[in-house]
Structures are given as C-alpha cells and as structure tokens.
C-alpha cells in the first residue's frame, strides 16, 4: 500500500469524526502551547535578569560587611552584620592596580518632597565614581563632584521617574526638594534605565553625596566611631582580573581591619558574575519546572489520543476485517492507524506552536511596575515541544495500531 493512500484513508476517517478528532487534537494543542508559552516566558525571565545585571555595570565586584559568626546569609543582614567598612577602606581599594573605579554606597528609603508633591524613593549616598560602577548616565545637568562629597553638600541627582513624579514636565534643575527635612538642590537628572532589579525600579532613585547621607540623613557608625559604609562597588579593568582582584581586595581589607590569619573575614566580596549566574541558575530551574508542568498536560493529551484510538479500533473492527479480507497486510493496517494518531498530534502541535507563540507575545507585551519579561519563542523550545509531541503521538498511537493490525480477519468480519 502506498503512503499516499494510507494518508488519504487516515485523513478520511479523521474527517468522518470531526468533533472527536478536534477534541482529541485540542489536548495536544493545549499541551504544546503550554510548553512553548511557559518555557519562553521562563527563558524571558532569565534574559531579563541577566540583562539587568549587565546594566548594573560590568566587571564589578561588591564588598559588603559580613558577620563571620552569623550562620549563612544571616551574616549579610544588617541586623547581624557589624558595620565594618569605612570611606578609608574604599580609598585604600582604589590603590589596587587592576581597580578602575571605587564607589562606596549607602542606601535607604525616604520621601522626596517638592512643593506639595511627594515621592517615596530609594536614596543612595555615593561618590561621582558610582556613575561608572553602576552605569548611570546623566540626561541633564551634572553629577555632584568629589568636592561636594568632601563638603557634604546638600545636592541631589534624581532618577528619571523620581524627577517626573515630582516635577512633571517642569525643569527640575536648580529646584529644591526636601529629604528628611533637609533641603537639597537638584543638580542632575539621570537617563531612564528601565527595568527593575529585585523589585527596585532603578528610575525611582535619588543620589546624594555619601558624606551627606552619613551625617545628615541616615547616620550610621562603625564600632570605632567612624561613618559606616554599607557597600563598596569596585570596578575592575577587565573580567580576566576579577579573581586576582578579589584576592587583592581581601588582603588589603584584612590588613586594614587587622584580622589575624586564623580569623574569618568581617566582609564578603561578591562578583556580578556570581550573583547573575546564581540567579540564572534559579530561573533556569524555574523554566525547567514550568516546562515539566506543561509537559504533564502534553502527556495527558497523549493519553487522550491513545484512548480515542483504542475506541476507534474497537468501533472499526469490522472495517479492519473487510480491509484484511481484501488483501490488507498487517503493516497496512498498522500504518493507517498510526498515521491517524500522527496527524492528530502533528496538526495539534502545529496549532499549539501558534498558540504558544501568542501566549509569549501577550506575556512580553505586559509591563508590571516597570518590569517586562521579554518572552521569546526560541527555536530549541519549539524543537523540544515538537519532538516530545511527536514521541507522545507515536507512542500513544502505536499500541492501538498494533491491536488493530493483529485482529484476526474472520473475527473482525463477524464482529457486531
């Protein structure tokens, strides 16, 4: 029997039972659409996280206080961490040869007030070097200078969204705003960064000199009475020098903090790669998890195909008998029924791909609090979904087809 004839008779019998074929197909459509849609959204989340971390600045490591006696991550929490870093530490790190820029940074939340408008923003106290380490670009005005840091000036650089919320379309440059009762002059506006890191919108920010932050806004001292620094961002010349630089930073800080060789560090050094690879790993697991859940619905779709094909074989026992009496070989019957399930799963998964693509398009067009997931239907996801669908289609079709092929022609002829 020619393949074309087998296909024709498979299509004919599918067309004879349109509603049933359609419903069986629907199981496949939903399964494939779920796999493609959910996995592309998961993949989009991975891309989003990676790219926002790249936005934070490249070749950057962060130094943060750490309580060596606290268990695990608790050592990083402000409750446990002793304030161990100072401005002098930051300056000392700048002397390491592979270091390009060092920006100490303290952050906290406060309300910005301009006239009768107010806006809750993240206040970052830092130095002009933060432009480099955090990839801040000025849209208008200028950044405060090192001199302003030294003089503890009350000047502020506003994030794009903070400026819009407070001043609307008016020009904020030179205007005054209040932070915790202190008057600040707006000297610059940042370009919009878009996106958010860990739920913090990078455009909702207000940057002031770190010395001003430490003395006038949120005072915080180390045990020795110096002004404390919460975090030091260190930018390195190239990504090759990261491991060496981490060792250098450790040596410098241990020496400055007078830590004996048998004692643990009172700080931690985290590289951007570490953080982003950890997050990518987490979202990768998340993607696989989503895919697996969607895979279950694909499996259910496959069971639906098998179920319908078994019913169909029973219903068409007589037809099989007639075909056999007229000279159909086992293989002919096998191929005919296998093709029916193959067509169901193939057409079903094709429609599923289109639906999954729509799902990911809809997902990537939604922006929630500045966060947008750039869901993209990657070819490997489509290939994966289709191969799983084909395998399921064949596996679920093969048993009923074998049952049909094995029917004894006489029994089949006299059935029903």
């Amino acid at each position, binding site marked *: *029997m*020619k393949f074309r*004839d087998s296909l024709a*008779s498979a299509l*004919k*019998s599918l067309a*004879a039972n349109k509603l049933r074929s359609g419903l069986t197909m629907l199981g496949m459509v939903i399964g494939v659409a779920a796999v493609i849609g959910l996995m592309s959204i998961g993949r989009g989340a991975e891309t989003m996280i990676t790219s926002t971390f790249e936005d934070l600045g490249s070749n950057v490591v962060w130094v943060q206080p750490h309580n060596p006696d606290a268990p695990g991550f608790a050592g990083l929490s402000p409750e446990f961490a002793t304030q161990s870093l100072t401005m002098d530490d930051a300056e000392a790190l700048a002397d390491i040869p592979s270091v390009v820029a060092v920006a100490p940074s303290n952050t906290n939340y406060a309300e910005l007030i301009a006239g009768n408008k107010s806006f809750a923003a993240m206040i970052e106290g830092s130095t002009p070097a933060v432009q480099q380490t955090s990839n801040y670009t000025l849209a208008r005005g200028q950044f405060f200078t090192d001199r302003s840091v030294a003089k503890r000036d009350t000047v502020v650089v506003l994030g794009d969204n903070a400026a819009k919320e407070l001043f609307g379309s008016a020009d904020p440059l030179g205007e005054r705003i209040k932070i915790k009762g202190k008057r600040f002059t707006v000297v610059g506006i940042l370009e919009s960064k878009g996106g958010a890191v860990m739920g913090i919108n990078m455009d909702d920010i207000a940057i002031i000199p770190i010395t001003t932050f430490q003395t006038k806004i949120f005072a915080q001292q180390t045990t020795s009475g110096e002004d404390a620094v919460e975090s030091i961002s260190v930018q390195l010349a190239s990504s090759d020098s990261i491991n060496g630089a981490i060792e250098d930073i450790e040596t410098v800080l241990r020496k400055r903090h007078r830590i004996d060789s048998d004692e643990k560090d009172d700080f931690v050094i985290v590289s951007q790669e570490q953080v982003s690879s950890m997050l990518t790993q987490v979202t990768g697991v998340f993607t696989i998890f989503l895919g697996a859940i969607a895979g279950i619905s694909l499996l259910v779709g496959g069971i639906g195909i098998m179920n319908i094909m078994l019913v169909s074989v029973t219903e068409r026992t*007589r*037809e099989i*008998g*007639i*075909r*056999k*009496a*007229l*000279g*159909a*070989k*086992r*293989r*002919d019957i096998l191929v005919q029924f296998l093709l029916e399930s193959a067509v169901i799963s193939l057409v079903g998964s094709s429609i599923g791909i289109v639906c999954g693509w729509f799902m990911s398009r809809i997902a990537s067009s939604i922006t929630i609090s500045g966060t947008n997931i750039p869901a993209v239907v990657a070819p490997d996801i489509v290939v994966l979904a289709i191969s799983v669908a084909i395998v399921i289609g064949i596996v679920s079709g093969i048993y009923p087809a074998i049952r049909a092929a094995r029917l004894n*022609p*006489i029994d089949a*002829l006299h059935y029903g």
Partner: protein
Amino acid sequence: MSRSMIELDKVTKVYRMGKVEVHALRGVSLSVDAGEMVSIIGASGSGKSTMLNVIGCLDKPTSGSYFFEGVNVSQLSDNQLAEVRNKKIGFVFQDFNLLPRATALSNVELPLIYSGGAHNRRQRAIDSLQRVGLSKRVDHKPTEMSGGEQQRVAIARAMINNPPIILADEPTGNLDSKSSADIMGIFHDLHREGKTIILITHESDIAAQAQRIVRISDGEIVSL
C-alpha cells in the same frame, strides 16, 4: 497428476471457545477444478462458513493440508495469505461488508490500493461498476443503495483485481427474489467467462444452479 485449483485433504478445524473445543471441520477432503461452479450447502453451524474461511485463506486448517493452485497454504505467512486474498480471490459476503462511509467507487477501488502500483485505479473501478450495471451509482454510499445494489458493488469489488476464483458466502441471503436472480445472473456470467465460483448457501434452489453440490453436515461432507 495435475493438481486441481483447490484441494482440501482431510482438513480439520478446531476452535477453542473458552474451555470448550468446537470441531468445525472433521476431516474434509474436496477438490475444485478451475472453471467449476460449485455450491456448498448445509444448515447453519454445519461448518460451511469455516470451510469458506479456509478456502478463502482467511483461516488456516488445524490439521490436514490445503493446496491452492498447487501451493500449500499452511506454509504461507500472513503477508503471503493477504496477497493471495488480494490477487486470487474475490469475496462476496451475505451482508455485503462494504465500508459504510465510502462511496461505491472507493469501495470497489479498495483491493487495488492493497495490491500497490495500480494506475488508472479510478477508471478500472468505474469499469467494474459498469459491468454490474451500476455506472450511475459511482458516487453513492452504501446507505443510499438497495441491498441488491450493495451486493452488486461487492461483486464489482471482488472482480476488480480479476481473480480466478469468486467465493460467495450466502450472497443472496439478505436479498429479495428479484435481486437474488440478478445476482445469480452475474455469477453465471462470470462462470461463463471462465471464473471458478464457489457458492455457500442453505437455499437449495440457489445451490441447484451450480454444476455440483457439496452437502456438508456437522463438519463432514455427506455427499459430493
């Protein structure tokens, strides 16, 4: 010695129905020459249908031997049996056994699909339908035709591969006397053309139209 077209030698057939063994055929020996028209007559349950299944290569004998055109059927594989059914035997059944959703044309074409490589399939099917006088029913489905017409479609289907032998199992069992006469007329025509016809029936007036009557009872031939 030249062999006959069909040679059954002490053929037995035992079916197992649960724990009970049913001896459908108990040592049947029969030979049919090419070009003969033979009736096999017997009451229901006498084993005549089993005999037709064996002759039609739908079933293998439990013991004994069956030679079809000199070939021992017991030694053929399932695929070879399918080929014999396809090319050498035309089946006509009591309840027609047409595919209900297919047109007369598609039903008649069916054996050609399984013999592979047949060109002008459609034309051959139309010709075959024409021979049984159904050229106007080509696109009708079995449900749109009378019993006599359906049986004529079945005969057209049996003839499409031009097999040397026609096996008919109670071909007039479900038909009125007018249609029965038409159908028997077609069989007589085919016989005149040189086809071997084996007719299974329980109606003696139908059986009497053959050259030879084989009477079967309780799985044994009682008269040749």
